[in-house]
């Protein structure tokens, strides 16, 4: 009986000693490592980016903890702890990989957005360049047509002039020469009625010409009389013709008047015919072309 009483006590003591030993036993190094690894990983991005892997690691760690709690620092506990460490590391690696892939997707997306923006920018620039080119082409066409038209009108005007005035070409441009005897009475600067008719025709021709061309009306006398008198008379006559042309519609800023007296004789002043030729008004149209065969009315 005594023995019977002592056996349960021995078993109880053995159980107590075993439990105490387990409770105070140091966890194996693998379990320490598993705990610290899980703790580190669970506080990192794995919680968001690899939650399932982290849960798997947690379950492995729980198995290791239970093994240690139940059996102490056994080889099985170390193996389970080792596995838990690897599971936690796996979660960490998966989280890093997910972050890398996200970064790549973001970079690809940004590159795609930039490429699309560049393509759109290029398209807009190309459209603008094409529009500009088309506009320049139209302007060029317009300018070409304007020049052709001006040349045509100028040629037509010159041909018309040749029918009733002496027209020639020199360095200054097209020169229309009108005899002074036809335009004025002697020593006067007032236009004769028939001179006005002739100048009407001249004005009509000049109006048809290039509106940008300048017109210079130059008065000339013969050598009879004083130089100052002739200079004054030639200036007044040039001015008279100039004013009449303006009154007939020629733009005032296109036409100027200048007298030269007898300084620019074109014939011998010793003869009446030569003096008649020298008494004249020349209308110089700068840049215009005279007809190839000049004519005298």
């Amino acid at each position, binding site marked *: 009986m005594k023995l019977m009483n002592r056996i349960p006590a021995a078993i109880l003591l053995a159980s107590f000693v075993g439990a105490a030993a387990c409770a105070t036993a140091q966890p194996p190094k693998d379990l320490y490592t598993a705990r610290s690894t899980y703790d580190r990983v669970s506080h990192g991005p794995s919680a968001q980016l690899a939650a399932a892997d982290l849960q798997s690691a947690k379950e492995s760690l729980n198995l290791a903890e239970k093994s240690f709690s139940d059996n102490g620092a056994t080889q099985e506990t170390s193996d389970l702890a080792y596995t838990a460490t690897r599971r936690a590391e*796996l979660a960490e*690696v*998966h989280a890093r990989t997910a972050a*890398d892939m996200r970064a790549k997707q973001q*970079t690809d997306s940004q*590159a795609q957005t930039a*490429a699309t923006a560049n393509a759109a920018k290029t398209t807009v620039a190309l459209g603008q360049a094409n529009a500009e080119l088309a506009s320049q082409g139209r302007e060029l066409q317009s300018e070409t047509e304007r020049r052709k038209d001006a040349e045509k009108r100028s040629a037509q005007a010159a041909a018309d002039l040749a029918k009733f005035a002496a027209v020639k070409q020199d360095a200054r441009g097209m020169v229309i020469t009108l005899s002074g005897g036809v335009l004025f009475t002697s020593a006067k600067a007032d236009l004769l009625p028939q001179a006005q008719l002739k100048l009407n025709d001249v004005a009509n021709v000049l109006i048809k010409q290039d509106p940008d061309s300048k017109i210079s009306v130059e008065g000339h006398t013969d050598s009879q009389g004083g130089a100052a008198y002739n200079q004054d008379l030639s200036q007044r006559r040039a001015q008279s013709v100039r004013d009449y042309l303006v009154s007939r519609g020629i733009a005032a800023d296109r036409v100027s008047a200048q007298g030269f007296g007898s300084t620019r004789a074109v014939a011998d002043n010793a003869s009446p015919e030569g003096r008649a030729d020298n008494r004249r008004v020349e209308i110089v149209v700068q840049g215009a072309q005279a007809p190839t065969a000049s004519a005298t009315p």
Partner: protein
Amino acid sequence: MADAESAERSARELGAGTKSSAQLNLKLADDQIAQAKIAVRDGDDERANLELLRATADAELALALAREEDAKASAQGATNASNAAATNTAAANAAANGAQ
């Protein structure tokens, strides 16, 4: 045994054997599979199972590390390409502005 060997094979096929970050874990998996085979031969199934548990964990980690290395290289490549494109775009814009 099949799970561990399958994971080890996958890791090796993904180049874990040549990727520095994965080589150690792949080697550990190989060693543990070998230990498991010895345990099986000795009739110690419990030991074999635990070795295979370790081997599977190492093989899967090796596989993940190999994939990570690929993903990192791919991300770096995308970044380099993006930077090159940005540089080219900046140069093209500068040239276009200079031409205007």
